[in-house]
């Protein structure tokens, strides 16, 4: 074994000056980017479902729901962006649950770094995922005939809002990832919780035809509020009130769940 002599040659290295919390978080973000490179399949999962939804709803239901597929697309596309971001958050929780099962986080925890840095890194990865998936869906929408009336500025504002939504929703699945050992359980639980939220909203249809009791829920469903804001931002005519209502859920989730995350993580 030649290792022992090689080991003797290994230079001893002292700790460099302490990196900033931001630098730690960016390193974890770089890890998320490397994952895209090595596991491109995850992008496929990420993008195929919303593409299928867009195509099926537009062409199968569009005519019946809104008179014509092109008119329906104009209504549906901002909603599918919200749905994509909300569903994507689940993958982040699955990834965390996988990492925790492998002891990777023990390594991170035994390093002298900012405690929340690994989670901030997950968020960086999530935001990249949201941007990639959102851009692909928007491009497909544009090809199919979607026209954002508020123009480029509206699109940029809508994507900023999507990032805020993804950031807030992400905490739910980070907490689930910390609590639940098996990644598939995180996924099952996540979708069980998200399906009613996404379908009982104004993403796919105008709630005007729903029974009163359901409409009462749909009107206050955070997903509906988010969708209304994105629609307004992309289509023009958004009010400040709509934007603030849409931001309530992400702000509350972050305020409550970020400290919870830290507590759960340090308690383990």
């Amino acid at each position, binding site marked *: 074994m030649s290792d022992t002599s090689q080991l003797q040659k290994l230079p*001893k290295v002292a700790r460099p000056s302490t990196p900033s919390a931001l630098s730690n978080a960016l390193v974890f973000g770089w890890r998320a980017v490397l994952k895209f490179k090595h596991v491109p399949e995850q992008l496929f999962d990420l993008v195929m479902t919303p593409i299928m939804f867009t195509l099926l709803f537009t062409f199968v239901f569009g005519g019946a729901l809104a008179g014509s597929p092109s008119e329906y697309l104009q209504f549906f596309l901002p909603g599918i962006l919200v749905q994509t971001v909300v569903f994507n958050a689940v993958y982040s929780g699955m990834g965390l649950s996988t990492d925790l099962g492998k002891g990777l986080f023990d390594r991170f925890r035994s*390093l002298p770094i900012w405690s929340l840095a690994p989670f901030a890194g997950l968020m960086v990865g999530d935001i990249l995922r949201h941007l990639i998936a959102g851009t692909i869906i928007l491009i497909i929408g544009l090809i199919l005939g979607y026209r954002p009336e508020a123009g480029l500025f509206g699109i940029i504002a809508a994507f900023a809002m999507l990032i805020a939504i993804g950031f807030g929703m992400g905490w739910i699945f980070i907490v689930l990832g910390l609590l639940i050992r098996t990644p598939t359980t995180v996924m099952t639980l996540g979708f069980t919780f998200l399906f009613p939220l996404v379908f009982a909203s104004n993403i796919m249809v105008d709630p005007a035809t729903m029974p009163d009791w359901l409409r009462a829920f749909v009107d206050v469903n955070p997903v509906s509020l988010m969708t209304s804001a994105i629609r307004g931002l992309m289509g023009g005519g958004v009010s400040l009130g709509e934007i603030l209502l849409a931001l309530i859920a992400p702000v509350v989730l972050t305020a409550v769940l970020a400290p919870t995350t830290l507590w759960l993580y340090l308690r383990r």
Partner: protein
Amino acid sequence: MNDTSPAIKLNAPLDASPNAISARGLVKAFGDVRAVDGIDLDVPRGIIFAVLGPNGAGKTTLMRMLATLTRPDAGSASVMGHDLISAPHAVPTAIAMTGQFASLDEDLTGRENLVLLARLWGFRGRAAKARADDLLAAFDLSAAATKQVKDYSGGMRRRLDIAASLIVTPGVLFLDEPTTGLDPKARKDVWAMIRGLADSGVTILLTTQYLEEADQLAARIAVIDRGKKIAEGTSRELKAATGSGFLHVAIADPARLDEAAGILEQRLGHKANRSTEGAELSILAGTAKDANEALAVLVGQGIELSNFSMGQPSLDEVFFALTGQPGTDTSREEATL
């Protein structure tokens, strides 16, 4: 490393204590189970120290407490001069831990894993890459540097995992069962690596359930069982503490094993350890004369012996004498694989 400041001292000791680790009365309970039940430990600087015990003895919990991954319920400890209770955030700057399960990102390459950790420690750009390459070379992994870790063999993973603990040369390196699950060749490689690290001046605390491993590597051994330390010393001291020697006998007719064990236990006043596969007994014998007399009784009863010998106890027998349970012997485990 040209890029790092030469002004930084290498884990300079904060105190004059000759001990890298000093622990008193550490306790950790999970529900009703006291996983670690009042352990004192003094690990001198610069040696390999082994914590030996069976599965579930509390080895990993003890190590996780010292590495600040688990908070102790009671007791105190200092690691490289940093107090575990009052300054837990200072401890990670002086230690590194390689856990039982490879703590690597399987999707990334070996080099990316090391660069990631080097950046987290604060190395920038080129310095991080240079350190990663140095470590890959030292651990004989340069050829696999750009392969994803999921394609590594068990031994390669283990080496990368240990390399990942040496980004910054630690004062104390914790190795939790460093060779569990490795084949004999890979195990010997990891042993050579651990010795090399100790020679370079790193204090190493390792846990193991393999008596042979502790015997081979460690300058001092603490034996723990059910959360308590039951013995500590050098391998030789532990063997000597159990008495002058062990009598080993092999019985020609396995059917008479119980009878033979009964006779030996009665004559020598100790419990006989039965081997699981052969008709063999080993028992602590006070003196050679006692052993001879006991053998004479066996022969007098017409129990035919196919073999007998008297010798220094193995660590396996030491463990048996200390706990009343057989330990886990590497050779035995390999034989049954």
